[in-house]
Every structure is written in C-alpha cells, then in structure tokens.
C-alpha cells in the first residue's frame, strides 16, 4: 500500500537512513538490517534493533529492560489500536515500531505511575495525533474512500459455521459500525476504540488521552448516539 502522505514522505526515508547507518557498519552474520518501512519486524528483530539504539538512560531499572518481553506482551494490543485507528496495516506497523522505539528511548521517564500498556498506548496515541495532524487532508480523503473494505473486517467475524442469514446480519452490523466510526471526530473515535476495542476503563482512557473523565463519558455518549442513529437509519431502509 502506498503512503502518499506528504511531509513525512521525506522524513521517513531520512529517519530510516539515519537508523541504518550503525547497522550498515555491521557485516556478516552480525549484520542488523533495519527493514524498510512497509515490512514488519518480528519481536526479536524489533527488540534487537531497539537495543542497538544508543540511549543514555540505562542506569535505572525499568520494565523496559526486558524489552523482548514487553514487546511480546503489548505489541498485539498496540498494533490493534493503531490498525483500528488508522485502518492501514503498513502505517500501523510502522507506528507500532515507532511506539516501542520512543518507549525505549524515553524509558527513564517511566515512573510507574501508570501501567506499561497505558504508557505505550499514550505514546501510540501521540503518534496517531502527530500523523493525522500533519496529514489530515490526505488521510481523511483516503479514509473516506475506504482504504479497508468493511467486508474484509467482517470476514474475521467469529462463528464462521453459523447460519448464512445470521452471518449476513452480523456482517451488516460490523460494516455499519465500521463506517460510523470513520465519521466520528478523531477524539471521539480514539475514545470509542479505547473503550470498545481495547476495553479500557474510563479512568484509564482518561489517563491515556489526558481528557477529564466527564469529557470522556460525554464523547462516548455522543459516539454511541451516532451509532444508534445509523442503526436506526439502516433499519428504516431495510423496512
């Protein structure tokens, strides 16, 4: 999938090039190759790459000292959140790696005030915000043209052996929800996904987003009102 997003189009190759320099110096079996942007990295590869990053903060022990374990545990969740937020697997993968890179580089700042997953989600959310802020127009044009087909998501619905009619209804429901979420404001969408995909508590969402609890609730009320309105509309059309 092509990333035609301006601005970071030039930034990413530069960042990748800079990171590749120490890797290029290595040769033979010990060579660390930073994979190009669109390729995914295994947990080991990602952890190894991050460990090779130079950072002054290594004296104070943090949960990130066992980086491979942290990535193993939290990577699926971070990737899922980014994938649901951005709807672009390549970009989600890139930002997932960037999330762990930032977490590693600023691990000294982790004081244990919140859980590791909350901290990582906060970093991931900041990356999404940065990305959508700088690439807002192209991003939304791409999203509105449905870069990911809802049917593709619905194909992953559970109970594949259920009745065809039930599956059809379930597919319709997921498609409506998928489209409705794309019409929400970025803040509402983030809160919605954190609550109903990541199943975070409201207080946890408040901590991740930095939004007061009452505002989080208000956003969820509005998002759910949108969802109900869309379902009511589709039901009317069906009748």
């Amino acid at each position, binding site marked *: 999938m092509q990333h035609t997003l301006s601005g970071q189009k030039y930034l990413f190759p530069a960042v990748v090039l800079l990171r590749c320099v120490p890797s290029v110096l290595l040769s033979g079996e010990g060579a660390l190759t930073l994979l190009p942007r669109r*390729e995914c990295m295994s947990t080991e590869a990602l952890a190894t790459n991050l460990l090779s990053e130079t950072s002054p903060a290594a004296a104070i022990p943090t949960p990130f000292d066992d980086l491979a374990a942290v990535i193993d545990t939290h990577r699926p969740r971070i990737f899922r959140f980014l994938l649901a937020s951005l709807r672009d697997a390549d970009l989600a993968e890139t930002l997932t790696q960037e999330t762990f890179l930032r977490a590693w580089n600023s691990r000294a700042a982790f004081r244990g005030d919140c859980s590791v997953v909350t901290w990582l989600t906060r970093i991931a959310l900041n990356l999404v915000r940065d990305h959508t802020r700088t690439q807002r127009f192209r991003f939304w044009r791409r999203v509105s043209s449905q870069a990911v087909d809802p049917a593709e998501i619905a194909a992953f619905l559970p109970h594949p052996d259920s009745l065809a009619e039930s599956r059809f209804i379930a597919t319709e429901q997921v498609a409506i929800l998928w489209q409705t979420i794309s019409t929400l404001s970025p803040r509402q969408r983030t809160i919605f996904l954190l609550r109903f995909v990541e199943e975070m508590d409201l207080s946890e969402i408040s901590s991740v987003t930095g939004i007061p609890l009452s505002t989080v609730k208000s956003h969820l009320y509005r998002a759910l009102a949108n969802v109900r309105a869309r379902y009511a509309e589709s039901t009317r059309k069906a009748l």
Partner: protein
Amino acid sequence: MSLKPHRHLTHRQLCDVLLADSQETSPRREQMREHLRDCPLCAAELASLRQPLSLFRSATTAWASHTSASCSRTLPALPDSLQSPLRDGISGRRLSRPVVWASAAALLFAAAIPLTLHEHRTSYAPTQETVVPGGHPCSRQIDRVGDEALLEEIDQTLSSPVPTPMQPLADPTAGRSNQIDSTPRKN
C-alpha cells in the same frame, strides 16, 4: 433518579449500563438492571447496541492478529548470533560495539590512504626536476651513486700520465711477458 415502570431508559442510561463495569453495584445501577429485566423494549435496545460492539471487537481483534501474523510470516529468520544477545537483553549492545568500532576504524583507514598518498607526492615535488619522472625514490638514489662513480672514473682517467687506452703501448710486456694476446683488436 428513580425509574418509573412505564418509562424507558434514556440514551444516557443505556450508555451508562453499557459502559458500566458488570460488577459495579450501586442503587441506581440496580434499578436500571431491574428495569431491563422487566422491559423487553429497553433490553432489546441494549442488546442491539451491545451485540454489534462485541462483534466489532471480535472482528477487529481477529483482523489485527491475522494482519500481524501475515506480516511476521514474511520475515526472514534471525541469525543465531543475534538470538543470544537478545536473550541477554542489554548485553546485546555490548557485543555489537567492537564490530562497529572495527568497521569504523577500517573506514577511517580507507579514507586516510588517499590523503597519505597526496602528502607523499607534495613532499617529493621539489626534487622532481633532477629525477626521471615517475621514478622510484630508491632507484633515484642508486642512479646518483652510479653517476658519482662514473665521474670518479673519468677523473682518474684524465689525471693519469698515460691514458688508459694507451697503457698497453707504454709497457707492452708488463706482467704479461709469457702470454700471447690472441684476441683480435678493434679500432
């Protein structure tokens, strides 16, 4: 806020039920739960909201897992040399450092060679006029010694009372009285 039997749950109340922790207990929450048990309309409304959300979460989770797994399948296996540093955590950085430094030193050395050659050329530049162009410094020194020997020989020849070619005539039998020179003479 008390709930009357004939009044349905508002949007906010439905959302509160949806967002609430299932183990949360409060009088207000209990009233709403009681109402949902008694009111099929509100229960249906809540179910119509809860079901797609649950489906959406399942589908998104499965989709993300599938996408992530398909990405990982395309990766080449890591070399064994990288596995142990990874298991050792931070020590992986230490292992890779000497290689980096060695590579950097090799690069610096490679970059310094042209500079050194340039320096050599400039230091020999003043003597280039007296030396054959492109000649090696050692060969130049040998040539100088040869020249001096030749000049010495010429000096000796010139300073001798009888020139060397005329010496056989000056004393034809000197030291060779019993020998007959049979070699042909050349002019």
